[in-house]
């Protein structure tokens, strides 16, 4: 379809001399040219948190894990794994924003897709790191490649995560080539190495019709391919749990539950990212109220689907209350986990499903608050999926010390989790400092095709 609308005379020259376009380019390149005090403070803060995490990991690996982490034989998987599941879910944001919207002709995706892809890349990288941090013997990481067993869901997970990292990078990079050439041609007063980097990364892009044709074709193929890959990564992630004989994970509903949860988290995270980038880089002209309006509507849809899967996951077994599920479910509904469970249901499911129904709450600030709360609730949602059920195995836990019957993440664990977040945010921040965080050509192309509503909601 894109090929059919292809007009070489319109696109053969990327500088099509419209004042508006020059202005747009100047706006979108500004974050690269100038970094304010707060920008530096933010980067410094993130680096400090990462160093704290590295130190915490050093402590964990050099001191006894019995002391540094709160894991015991019954809760063998803690926040590292739930954080891994969170990041895997977050990585779905790229699939949703750049592929699903694009293929369904939701033209408003254009200024959002690159933000989504870089968040996805950051998330998937730190999902991988989270899982290594959780390993008892990280020094034997290479055994996964030396002695792989295909029947293990972990092997499937490694295959799909590595594929997704590569696919995310390619999907981020290929549509960025014209932007890199824009950077090369229009940025001045930049360090020499940075200009060299643009030169080298833009791979001799000239913007001739043949290159555009190849680019469009490549992007189209990647866009279609990333959808099954996104579904695969969520599914394999769900199977890590669903292939075990534990009552709390023994569910055929799990992959749909994970996919729908990932779409909801992706939408909420997109709202947060869009709001922050819009404010930080003053991009109100490009990330408009229309985007929040649309994202708010998308969030209602995604939350409704996720509620459906939650009903299947919790209420159907609760109706039967088989002794297999009862311990875990009662613990969630009225027991020790009840406070967290109902908070997550409220802030992670019902608020995102109901509040954005009101148009006044789809304005940037209120929607940002709703989405931020939802993102936090979704981190706890993964915590609830992974951790509390482990304390309700088939055979009762008896005669063990106090610390074996409860799990509260230790300071070391929480520091490392905080560092993974800081790392993900640092990737997004640094990316936006070196590359246009909004795709200049994709937005311009939308305008060229006479679709003014892409950036100007009327």
């Amino acid at each position, binding site marked *: 379809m894109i090929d059919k609308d292809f007009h070489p005379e319109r696109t053969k020259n990327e500088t099509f001399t419209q004042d508006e376009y020059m202005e747009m380019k100047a706006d979108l390149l500004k974050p690269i040219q100038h970094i304010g005090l707060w920008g530096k403070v933010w980067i410094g803060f993130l680096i400090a948190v990462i160093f704290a995490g590295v130190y915490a990991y050093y402590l964990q690996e050099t001191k006894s894990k019995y*002391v540094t982490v709160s894991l015991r034989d019954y809760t063998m998987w803690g926040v590292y794994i739930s954080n891994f599941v969170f990041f895997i879910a977050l990585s779905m944001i790229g699939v949703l924003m750049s592929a699903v919207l694009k293929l369904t002709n939701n033209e408003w995706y254009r200024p959002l897709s690159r933000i989504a892809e870089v968040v996805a890349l950051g998330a998937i990288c730190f999902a991988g790191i989270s899982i290594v941090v959780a390993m008892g013997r990280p020094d034997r990481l290479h055994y996964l490649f030396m002695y792989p067993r295909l029947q293990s869901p972990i092997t499937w997970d490694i295959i799909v995560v590595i594929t997704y990292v590569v696919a995310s990078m390619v999907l981020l990079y290929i549509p960025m080539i014209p932007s890199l050439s824009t950077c090369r041609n229009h940025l001045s007063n930049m360090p020499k190495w940075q200009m060299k980097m643009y030169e080298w990364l833009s791979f001799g892009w000239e913007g001739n019709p043949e290159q555009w044709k190849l680019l469009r074709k490549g992007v189209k193929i990647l866009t279609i391919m990333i959808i099954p890959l996104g579904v695969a990564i969520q599914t394999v992630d769900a199977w890590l749990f669903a292939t075990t004989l534990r009552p709390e994970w023994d569910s055929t509903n799990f992959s749909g539950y994970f996919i729908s949860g990932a779409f909801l988290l992706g939408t909420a995270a997109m709202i947060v990212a869009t709001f922050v980038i819009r404010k930080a880089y003053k991009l109100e002209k490009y990330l408009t109220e229309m985007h929040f309006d649309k994202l708010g509507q998308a969030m209602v849809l995604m939350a409704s689907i996720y509620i459906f899967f939650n009903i299947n996951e919790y209420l159907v077994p609760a109706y039967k209350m088989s002794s297999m599920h009862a311990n875990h479910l009662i613990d969630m509904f009225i027991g020790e986990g009840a406070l967290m469970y109902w908070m997550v249901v409220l802030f992670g499911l019902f608020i995102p499903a109901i509040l954005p129904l009101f148009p006044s709450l789809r304005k940037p600030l209120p929607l940002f608050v709703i989405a931020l709360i939802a993102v936090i609730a979704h981190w706890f949602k993964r915590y609830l999926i992974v951790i509390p059920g482990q304390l309700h195995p088939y055979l009762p836990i008896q005669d063990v010390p106090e610390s074996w019957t409860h799990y509260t993440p230790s300071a070391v664990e929480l520091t490392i989790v905080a560092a993974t977040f800081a790392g993900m945010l640092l990737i997004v921040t640094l990316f936006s400092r070196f590359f246009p965080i909004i795709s200049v050509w994709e937005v311009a192309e939308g305008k060229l095709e006479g679709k003014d509503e892409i950036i100007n909601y009327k």
Partner: protein
Amino acid sequence: MKKENEASNRRNFLKLGLLAGAATVAAVGTKNSLLADEPADEAGSKVKVETSDGKVVEVDSSMVQHPAEENLNKINVREAIPGKKFVMVIDLGRCANERACIEGCQSMHGMMAPVEYIKVKKMQDSELAAPYWFPTLCYQCDNPPCTKVCPVDATFKRTDGIVAVDSERCIGCKFCMAACPYSARSFNFGRPEQVVISEKKTCDDNHCCTTKSEMVGTVSKCDFCPDSGAKGVLPACVTECPNGTIFYGDELEDAVTNGEETFRLSELLKKRAGYRQFEELGTKPRVYYLPPVNRQFPFQDAEGPVNTKE
């Protein structure tokens, strides 16, 4: 230093024995009898052995390689004991929660409380049902959910029925622990007190060394002590129990023993209605339970928690 020399002398002697055994043309199929304990005489004397087709023949003792001569340091966890299929039967009518099996196991494997490869749980199915003590350990399942999920083949099923863990291979992902519905597995978190004990623990004849449970950052569990079993030495949980609750044996021999009494496995299970825990999970455990009927003791509740120290 002196000790080391002794050990190495012993080792050399054993090596010599193994070489002698290997050098002879071992045409006689010997059966590693667990129950009928035949003493290994010096070379030159005749011993009676049973061939695979059931005949008793007299051969030179040098032709018989007795399992007791095996050097425990040479145990390869990936190699099954040939001609064995280990099995266990636990008579719930005899267990009085005296915890001797737990302590025996802990000292044999050099594991510190609260890590218990064998646990004793109080089970009561409903308020009206009679409570009973339930010793539980790794069931060495024939359809093990734990080995399926291992990404590096660190835990695997052996032909002698054992589900073994190769501590040199384990990467510590703990997926096998998540997959085990019986919570039989334990992770070595490197608890400082435990590390001290592990360093002291030596691999001598009194310790079963099939699993190197002292490896920090890896998963371990009850290994059924197959290398002791092959020597005719019963696991500590069996010998320590004052009530003879636990029977250990070989499915191929169709016999189990608690050290004092020996039963035909098939008959025992038939007569006493032996069952396996959570049969519906399809894991096919190799541990059978005899229902808690005809109890030797009235049920007495535990006086309090034992494992209170963190």
